[in-house]
């Protein structure tokens, strides 16, 4: 009990001491919290997106085969489908029809897809949630397109995709095969690319090699490559992230520097007084510990809590301008919270520990001075 009381007393003294430089410490607390907030927001956001991608894309096509002509993706002829189907180990192969349509009225890019099953009626489309809400289009409304010949094509909205699936479908327009081919001028037997299913997952690599040998102008993309694409989204090597990381690192160096650059004469004198009036070296060290912890722990907790609220309750409001970029359509970014305890504890050890250590270490020497020094100077 006595130990706890003694610690609380030392904490009281430390807080009184911090309050002496109210403005400086308030600013420090604010900036520190902001920095933690920024990093934690990024951590929460990226972790959630990656988790969701990993979960949701588990059922992505096992393999996608693209044709590459002069370094660019080009349409594939139907006979490639037949040749691929003939490879041993391929259970089935299908030509996929999809592409982009630029809508000049709103300046938005739509992704147009022909589903394998459940195609809309010819003359109708099923639209994604972002298209529906941004152009106020609902069941029964008409959507105007310009086909590849310049003709106007009107398609009726048969239904909308759920807003809950927005993360994968916000900008989709589902059409029938005939409408697609007419709109984009892609005649049979050409398709955008080929998806295939294999009998044995472990043979995927071998089959991919066979395909490239058989059809050298194709490029296969496997499901785990698709999934790994999203592991690197928002990673620290991306341009914007480097800047954020840079700002954060510089800030922390700045804080720690201020602390680690040693004690002022006034601080040394004060420690001398405390030693003289009966504080032990360990008491002085504890005071310094509380000094570092009071600020860094508060900033850490506040920063993380605010970051959580920012990402999961306000749907990353502050990141919106960066995420939107020049997109006209964008999903809601209503993400599911996945907290990575490992990341949070790493953040804790990166923010609270160094700062506290940077506060204690320079004081070590001063804390060990003889109590009578204050009388001799």
């Amino acid at each position, binding site marked *: 009990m006595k130990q706890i*009381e003694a610690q609380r*007393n*030392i904490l009281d003294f430390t807080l009184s001491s911090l309050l002496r430089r109210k403005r400086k410490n308030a600013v420090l607390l604010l900036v520190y919290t902001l920095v933690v907030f920024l990093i934690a927001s990024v951590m929460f956001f990226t972790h959630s997106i990656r988790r969701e991608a990993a979960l949701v894309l588990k059922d992505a096509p096992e393999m996608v085969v693209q044709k590459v002509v002069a370094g660019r993706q080009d349409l594939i002829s139907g006979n490639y489908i037949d040749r691929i189907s003939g490879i041993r180990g391929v259970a089935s192969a299908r030509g996929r029809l999809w592409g982009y349509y630029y809508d000049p009225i709103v300046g938005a890019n739509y992704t147009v897809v022909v589903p394998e099953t459940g195609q809309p009626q010819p003359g109708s489309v099923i639209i994604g949630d972002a298209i529906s809400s941004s152009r106020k289009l609902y069941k029964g409304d008409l959507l105007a397109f310009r086909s590849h010949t310049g003709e106007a094509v009107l398609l009726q909205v048969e239904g909308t995709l759920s807003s809950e699936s927005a993360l994968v479908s916000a900008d989709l327009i589902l059409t029938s095969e005939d409408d697609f081919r007419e709109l984009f001028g892609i005649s049979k037997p050409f398709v955008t690319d080929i998806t295939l299913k294999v009998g044995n997952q472990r043979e995927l690599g071998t089959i991919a090699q066979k395909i490239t040998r058989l059809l050298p102008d194709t490029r296969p993309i496997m499901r785990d490559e698709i999934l790994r694409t999203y592991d690197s989204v928002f990673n620290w090597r991306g341009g914007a992230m480097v800047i954020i990381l840079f700002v954060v690192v510089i800030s922390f160096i700045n804080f720690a520097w201020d602390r680690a650059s040693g004690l002022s004469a006034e601080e040394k004198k004060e420690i001398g007084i405390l030693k003289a009036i*009966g*504080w*032990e070296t360990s008491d002085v060290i504890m005071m310094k510990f509380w000094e570092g912890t009071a600020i860094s722990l508060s900033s850490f907790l506040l920063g993380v809590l605010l970051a959580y609220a920012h990402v999961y309750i306000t749907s990353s409001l502050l990141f919106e301008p960066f995420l939107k970029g020049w997109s006209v359509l964008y999903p809601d970014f209503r993400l599911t919270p996945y907290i990575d305890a490992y990341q949070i504890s790493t953040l804790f050890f990166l923010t609270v520990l160094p700062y506290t250590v940077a506060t204690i270490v320079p004081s070590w020497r001063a804390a060990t001075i003889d109590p*009578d020094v*204050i*009388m001799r100077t």
Partner: protein
Amino acid sequence: MIELADVRKVFNMNRPNEFTALHGVTLHISANRNTVLKGPSGSGKTTLLGILGCMARPTSGRIMLGEREITSLPERFLTEIRRRSFGFIFQQLNLIKGITALENIMVPAYPEGERRSQLKKRAVALLEVFGLGQKATSRVEWLSGGEAQRVAIARALINNPSVIVADEPTAHLDSKLSEEFMEIMQKLKGEGRTVIIASHDPIVYTSGFVDTVVEMRDGSVVDVRATG
């Protein structure tokens, strides 16, 4: 009460600026008496004060506090003894700036872990004794010289020490306040405490309240006189 046997103190040992502050001092400080260490600056009285007050260790020699030898006690125990048995008043007062008078008085007791409400009550009582009840929540920078002096004395008393040690307490005080100071020391003696003062101020060493004057010169005791 405090017994010194052949105490030497050397600073910066084995270095070019090696300096012997005390050359073999043997001294007895009586309990419940007011002892003054008199001598010019450089005589070693401050160093001796530090050793008497368990703030510093002698380079050689022995110290007894009551029945107990404390010469080679580890820092922790020495600090504890010092904190509980000794109260210090410094020449520069050395109050902690930026916090209140009340908190300054309480600070030496913080490591003891006493319940704060109790500690606060004691501190307030001390302030009242010195007529500073109104100044409890004032920053020490705002106190007058005399008020600050009294806060320093109150701080020295917070742990109810049996020995009061003062280093040149009247150096920055006028005659009136100096006399007042000696009166306060007399009162403390009346409470059963021992008082040790280092001073070259005549008001101090010729005061009628003083029992023993220890004269020092060049790191040695040259004379011990019982007065009063």
